[in-house]
């Protein structure tokens, strides 16, 4: 009994001394600022900064090789904290979020064929350029939803991806996986968007989608500064969109939407009060 206590205790003592010595002798010097920076970062390891995870970004920050505003998920808050830790001037970062520029779900946009294959937009796109007639619209199989590390994307019952303005951190993962380039990065402050991504002529679009932009120019005539039309597709000019919302009621196909009022039909309903722009 006593022998057992002594021998086990002895082994423990020797091991403790050895470990203690090793911890001192072989300690790796870590800049305390790196640990502090890592603490401040969101920890999602999403890769939006272009480095392998948050630790990689923290290391790069200390090396001084990059700007502080490379972490979209962290937002302005993180930039301020990082600036404090590193003792530098905070550079202003505009918050960007992703928006799906399409409202053509399975009810509103016509399909070319009935797709039965893999639940993946890129795989569907390889088969005769996707199941929908529209060459630009949302494929609707949810590849962006699966790519989103922040649970910010929902698929509506009729197969349209909708991105939450609040949950989206701007990491661009969805932009990268979308085979149709229908997800765009827009300034968070801009809530009015032209939700269409087809450059086909109006007459053609009317044949396959009830809610696509037909390039009729009415929005541009109403608020000339806030819209531009290229190749039969209107787009909000985000630098000067203060009055963009006034053209919404004029749009004949209802493809301009104000996200601070409502999301595309039948989709995510945001809790009241969460839709106002952040005082960043």
């Amino acid at each position, binding site marked *: 009994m006593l022998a057992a206590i002594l021998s086990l205790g002895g082994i423990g003592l020797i091991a403790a001394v050895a470990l203690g010595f090793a911890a001192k002798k072989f300690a790796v010097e870590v800049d305390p600022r790196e640990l502090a920076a890592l603490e401040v970062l969101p920890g999602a390891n999403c890769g939006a900064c272009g480095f392998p995870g948050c630790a990689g970004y923290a290391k790069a920050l200390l090396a001084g090789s990059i700007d502080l505003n490379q972490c979209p998920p962290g937002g302005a808050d993180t930039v301020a904290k990082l600036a404090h830790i590193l003792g530098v001037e905070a550079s202003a970062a505009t918050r960007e979020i992703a928006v799906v520029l399409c409202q053509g779900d399975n009810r509103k946009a016509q399909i*070319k*064929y009935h797709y*039965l294959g*893999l639940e993946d937009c*890129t*795989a569907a796109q*390889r*088969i005769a350029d996707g199941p929908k007639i529209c060459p630009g619209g949302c494929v609707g199989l949810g590849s962006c939803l699966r790519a989103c590390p922040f649970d910010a994307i929902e698929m509506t019952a009729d197969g349209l991806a909708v991105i939450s303005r609040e949950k989206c951190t701007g990491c661009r993962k969805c932009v990268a996986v979308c085979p149709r380039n229908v997800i765009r990065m827009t300034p968070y402050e801009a809530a009015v968007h032209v939700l269409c991504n087809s450059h086909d002529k109006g007459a053609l679009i009317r044949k396959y989608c009830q809610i696509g932009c037909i390039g009729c120019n009415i929005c541009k005539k109403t608020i000339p500064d806030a819209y531009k039309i290229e190749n039969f597709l209107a787009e909000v000019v985000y630098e000067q969109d203060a009055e963009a919302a006034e053209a919404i009621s004029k749009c004949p196909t209802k493809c301009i939407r104000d996200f601070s009022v409502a999301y595309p039909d039948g989709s995510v309903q945001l809790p009241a009060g969460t839709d106002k722009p952040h005082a960043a």
Partner: protein
Amino acid sequence: MSLKTFAGGIHPPDNKQWSSHKAIEDCPLPAEFIVPLAQHIGAPSVACVEVGQQVSKGDEIGSAKGFVSVPVHAPTSGEVTAVENRPHPWGTSLPAVVIKADGEDRWSTELQPADPSELSPDEIIEKVRLAGVVGMGGAAFPAHVKMSPPPEKKISTLIFNGVECEPYLTADHRMMLEEPERILQGVALLQYVLGAEQVVIGIEANKPDAIALFEKHCAGTPVEVMPLQVKYPQGAEKQLIAAVTGKEVPSGGLPMDIGVAVHNVSTAAAITDAIIHGRPLIERVCTVTGPAIREPKNLRIRIGTPLSHLVEVCGGLVEEPGKIILGGPMMGFTQLGFDVPATRGTSGLLLLRAEDVSSHPESPCIRCARCVQACPINLLPTTIAAYARRDLLAEAAEYCAMDCIECGSCSYVCPSTIPLVQAIRYGKAAILAKKRSTQVS
């Protein structure tokens, strides 16, 4: 004696009884031809005619761009009414020359018949290229490329593909029965050009009449007729080589690496036309068949004939088809409608009823390994597909995803209806895209 074949493969019901007894008929000319400029593997040709121009049958209307490319010719005489994007069998809109037939069907005066005994192999290859001859089995790979291997790769065995393993299709079968001389002239030309010592025509045992006919014609010649066990995908190049020679084409390699070249029997006939009659490839035999068509037929069609015309010639539809397929049911292209034209690779038009098309939801893999047994190149389809779906591309490549020939045998046998071949194709495309992007950077 048991017949030769390859390892793996499947036995789908062949359904050839619909059309195998029907002689080839000449298809009446439609009023308008839509001739796509991309009809072959490789660079699409470029239109060399203008709207309003009068063309004769056999005139070049699209010129080849690069070595792996062939010219495209006018299927009849008439006026060019448009050069624009039209629906293409590949599912998208691609450039095409639209010709309004004038009804005269007059040959171009520039075509030169030739005596093959006066031509050198290089002259023959050039004539084949100018005639736009491509592999007629379905893939439409330019024939002149396969006829000009680099000098260090000697072709010792020349195999002709009379297998036609796709269910429903009988075009090659009828060609062999009705035009053996035309095929054998092409066989002799190819043997002369490639200098092969051994020439084999592989025919599946479900065409005993064709085997007997060719054995009669080839008696006393160096051409050997080899009956093969009935199995899909025996008509695939590498599987046919395995069946006939017992040799395996190395991973990532070409048949010429083991001294073999494979051509379809219909390609041989097209080469005969190109050399002896000086005629470009503007027509082919196409099987219009399936339960949704009133009168299945083997038709000799001009390239660019709209599918709607073929349906009309075959007595119309019995009912609205559930699936329209260009080619066979295993590897053919499903079509969105009848407005697309037949191309050089169109070996068949298959019309299935809605009740013939199964569409079961996918269920989990039960590890039965039927796909592994069926795979004709000994891959593990279920493993590769699972990796591809999770975007684990390095692992998929390690399991030889790039060697998949996309024959669809795995998807066909899968009791859980997992879209295996689609997943593997997705993985292959992603692997290629990744390779390309890393090469650029």
